């Protein structure tokens, strides 16, 4: 048996010599090695090393090597040395950097101060690395990108180093509306209403309710809603206590609906959670600050390097998103110029950051009004953070649609989106409190486009001036039929 397999191995060696990047050969080699009665793993490792010394980016070999290492139990520190060696000889190597990122958390795990109450369900292993080692890694990767700032693998690794923050899985907001007898819950990540164990307890009694996402287009949603049985909470003179349990995660959130109140909520704000900073890191500010300094130093030498600019933007956001807003926007402008092939990507990213900043500003001001006008917005995001918003103004941007996620704005009463390129209103769907919609100067051309509005029961006022649809023959009567609740129609 051993002989047959060994013969097969040497045959495969011959094959790999001809084509070292053959999927089939490597896979078969793995199959044979796994069945070999007396495998010679040291030999397999040295074969891999030879192959990698010929082409250090041969990812087939990397895959095979990982398998060999796993089976033969090579110590992690040895593997880290191996990665050191490969990076030392040529650091333009995603595979080695990536390999590092899997080894470091095992070898130098972060010592956790807080009790491990919120162990993530995705894996028991923390993906963070202890600070001492992190600083070494920062130094290493800085050497790489200062040596060759156009090599992206180092930059990606750098981003991994900076952005290992894992958000705890929580219920970020519970909102209850007395009038609608409805509960809306926002989670830290999109979840599937059917698969996740959610329990609603009202005044100490578990309540059978049906959770659903805000829009039929997607099942996974960071915001789920449910209707309470009629008559449970509609008496204003009663006080109610609600608790939503996320049983899978052992987390819950309470919400009290006091006497005389028509609605109530309980939540962590984006500012509380430092939500948008975790995009990069929850690393100590001092570390980030010094990283920003060194990357800025590089930028002085290489003012047009896109990786450098992008990293500066990310670091600035991690440090102080509002304070650096102006500089961030300027850098985005440069980025779009130097890397015009990706200008749309940068636009979208910039939008995202603008929206994040606007959310932060709104929360600092403690209002429920979200206004972001004249900012060249091309897309919307973080809409789950806008669950409580009653007034939204998106005028004078470059939006083409209100996506299904828009339906997460469950408290929305007034929508202003004048002077955009809107032609799709899919997301204006079952918004129970929506009364006014202003869509002046958009690209709405057919009645079908307006169909979603019919699902909003309270819609009173609609401004469609400057849209192609107003040119249609019997538009007024058709609209009256489509939207019977609208009393104030401007065409």
């Amino acid at each position, binding site marked *: 048996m051993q002989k047959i397999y060994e013969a097969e191995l*040497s045959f495969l*060696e*011959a094959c*790999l*010599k001809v084509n070292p990047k053959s999927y089939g050969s490597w896979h078969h080699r793995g199959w044979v090695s796994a069945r070999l009665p007396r495998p010679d793993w040291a*030999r397999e490792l*040295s*074969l891999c090393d*030879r*192959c990698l*010394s*010929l082409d250090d980016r041969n990812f087939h070999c990397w895959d095979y090597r990982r398998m060999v290492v796993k089976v033969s139990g090579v110590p992690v520190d040895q593997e880290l040395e191996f990665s050191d060696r490969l990076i*030392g*000889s*040529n*650091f333009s190597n995603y595979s080695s950097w990536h390999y590092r990122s899997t080894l470091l958390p095992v070898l130098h795990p972060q010592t956790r101060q807080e009790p491990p109450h919120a162990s993530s369900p995705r894996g028991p292993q923390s993906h963070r690395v202890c600070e001492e080692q992190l600083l070494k890694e920062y130094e290493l990767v*800085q*050497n*790489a990108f*200062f*040596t*060759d*700032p156009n090599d992206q693998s180092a930059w990606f690794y750098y981003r991994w180093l900076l952005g290992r923050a894992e958000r705890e899985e929580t219920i970020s907001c519970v909102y209850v509306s007395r009038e609608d007898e409805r509960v809306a819950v926002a989670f830290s990540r999109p979840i599937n209403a059917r698969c996740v164990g959610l329990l609603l307890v009202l005044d100490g009694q578990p309540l059978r309710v049906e959770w659903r996402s805000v829009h039929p287009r997607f099942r996974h949603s960071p915001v789920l809603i449910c209707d309470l049985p009629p008559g449970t909470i509609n008496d204003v003179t009663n006080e109610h206590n609600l608790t939503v349990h996320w049983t899978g995660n052992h987390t819950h959130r309470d919400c009290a609906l006091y006497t005389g109140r028509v609605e109530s909520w309980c939540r962590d704000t984006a500012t509380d959670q430092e939500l948008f900073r975790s995009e990069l890191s929850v690393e100590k500010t001092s570390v980030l600050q010094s990283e920003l300094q*060194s990357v800025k*130093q*590089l930028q002085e*030498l*290489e003012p047009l390097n896109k990786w450098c600019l992008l990293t500066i933007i990310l670091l600035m956001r991690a440090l102080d998103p509002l304070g650096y807003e102006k500089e961030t926007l300027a850098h985005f402008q440069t980025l779009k110029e130097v890397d015009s092939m990706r200008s749309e990507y940068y636009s979208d990213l910039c939008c995202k950051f603008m929206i994040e900043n606007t959310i932060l500003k709104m929360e600092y001001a403690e209002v429920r009004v979200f206004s972001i006008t004249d900012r060249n917005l091309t897309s919307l995001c973080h809409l789950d953070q806008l669950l409580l918003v009653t007034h939204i103004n998106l005028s004078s941007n470059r939006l083409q649609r209100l996506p299904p996620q828009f339906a997460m704005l469950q408290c929305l009463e007034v929508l202003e989106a004048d002077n955009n390129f809107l032609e799709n209103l899919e997301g204006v769907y079952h918004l129970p409190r929506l009364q006014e919609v202003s869509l002046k100067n958009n690209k709405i051309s057919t009645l079908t486009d307006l169909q979603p509005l019919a699902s909003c029961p309270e819609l009173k006022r609609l401004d469609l001036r400057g849209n192609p649809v107003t040119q249609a023959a019997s538009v007024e009567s058709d609209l009256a039929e489509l939207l019977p609740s609208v009393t104030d129609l401007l065409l």
Partner: protein
Amino acid sequence: MAAEDLPSEFDVVILGTGLAESVVAAACSRVGQRVLHLDRRSYYAANWASFTFNALLTWIQEQQEGPQPEQGKDWSSLLNDGEELIHLSNPDLDSITNIQVLSYASEEDEEVPDTAKEETSANSQLEAESTGSREEESAEAEEESAEAEATNTKGEEPEVDQSHPGASSGPSEPTRKKISYAQLLKEGRRFNIDLVSKLLFSRGSLVDLLIRSNVSRYTEFKNVTRILTYRHGNLQQVPCSRADVFASRQLSVVEKRKLMRFLTSCIEETEMDQAYSSQPYSKYLQDQQLGENLQHFLLHSIAMVTEDTPTEAGLASTRHFLRSLGRYGNSPFLFPVYGLGEIPQCFCRMSAVFGGIYCLRHSVSCLIVDKDANRCKAVIDSRGQRISCSHFVVEDGYLGSRSSVTTPTRLLSRAILITDSSVLPSDSEQQVSMVTIPPGEVCQSAVKMVELCSSTMTCMPGTYLVHLTCQSVGSAFEDLSQLVTKMFQTPESQEPGGRPSVLWSLYFNMADGSVPGVEGQGLPSNVHVCSGPEGSLDHEHSIKQAELIFQRILPDEEFCPPAPNPEDIIYDGESPTPSAEEDSVKEAGQQEESGGDLKEAGQQEESGGDLNPQLDQ
């Protein structure tokens, strides 16, 4: 061979087996010329030769004894009408001067006195053996008194007041077992000590020629693993490749960026460069805002030029360096395993494969010149045979007085050291280091130093072979000993330190071959002169010279076209048998495997061989 007479007619007679002569020999044989290649010496490669330790001692002695007086014979009986003679002289007459040997290794093995005696006896036995086995080497008489050798030499150099060697090298470092002089002699065959110290640029003309002509199959190379420079009394590694820059601990990240940017940008010419065309390179570097550290690296270690080299030349050598970088590894240089003396021999071998006839210890006494045509018609060899030829190629040393009278001799100062450790110890003991010592740092002129480890097969395990070269100001000892004292541990060293100890050293001056040749100075038009080694690090000079000579001899022929595999050659009347064909296919395959030495992808010199040893098991 001795008794037989040589054929009396050749196309080309070549005297001297230095690099340029050997390349000409290979090139001429390759295109079907009948070549006779002679050398008066008992060894190949003239001043390009590599010697074992013992053979070097013989060579030293020969040099010091001076040439045997040659009785001027009268060859006029061999002359025909209208012919005259040009007498040639002894090549070694002037080329090597100021030899000085200093041995610091203890005579006996101090640490283990019990075995010392045994070793000595084994030693003499081995010497006897080597004497017997080596035909080429003349009787190694002095080896019997090898110990006396060093002392002898010293006696001849009275101007150096020097404590008695050996005695002075006290047990300063009792922890490390010292290598004794007896061991050096015993392991003498492990040394291949070059008279010249040069390296091959990976994209230099010699490497190109070796590949183009297939001569590369005869030898193997190692990458120089690091470039060092001596600055403010310290040795620093010069980061020159991307990986070096990345790994460097001396450079700040900003310096790294600046250096990388400069290196990548200087590959292309810009208008800016032209603006500096009349100014020195050092000024150009200054204006690049590189910082002192980087300027030093770029000027002295990468461009390897001086402060006043013009920008154009400086940039050209920087580019040459960068182009060579990464072809075979992390530095731009290659060094032939078994020493530089291999290279002329490889070309000789190629010439012999294509019919060239070789005789050592066989010289040409006179040229017979046709007075009217001013052409060399024939030569008279050292045995008095008249051999006619259409071209005569000669090492300039044989022309003796003719060259030294007309041009002031420029000399190179050389030092060869055997040391016990590396000048800059690192993780790996097997480092091949190229070290630049800028002018003014210790010596007046710029010194190039190459430190070879034992895996280059030029020195015994546990030792390093260090070559120092610079343009002479005084004698080699005057020029270089101060630097040696500073960088190494010798009895003269002031303060003790962890520096490598010198076990044995040799200083000598060699004529600088870059001095304009004696071409056209009353020599017949078909006599071509090759100069000896010059001081530069590369081989460009000799290769260019060989190509020029070849073109003068055979203006219409290709210079060193690829040689076929020996098995592919079909000799007259011999029909290729199927088995021969098979063989040649097999051979070609093997070539591919074993001849990976000079293939682009073969970056694994260090690990030895390529994928095959692993895969073939």
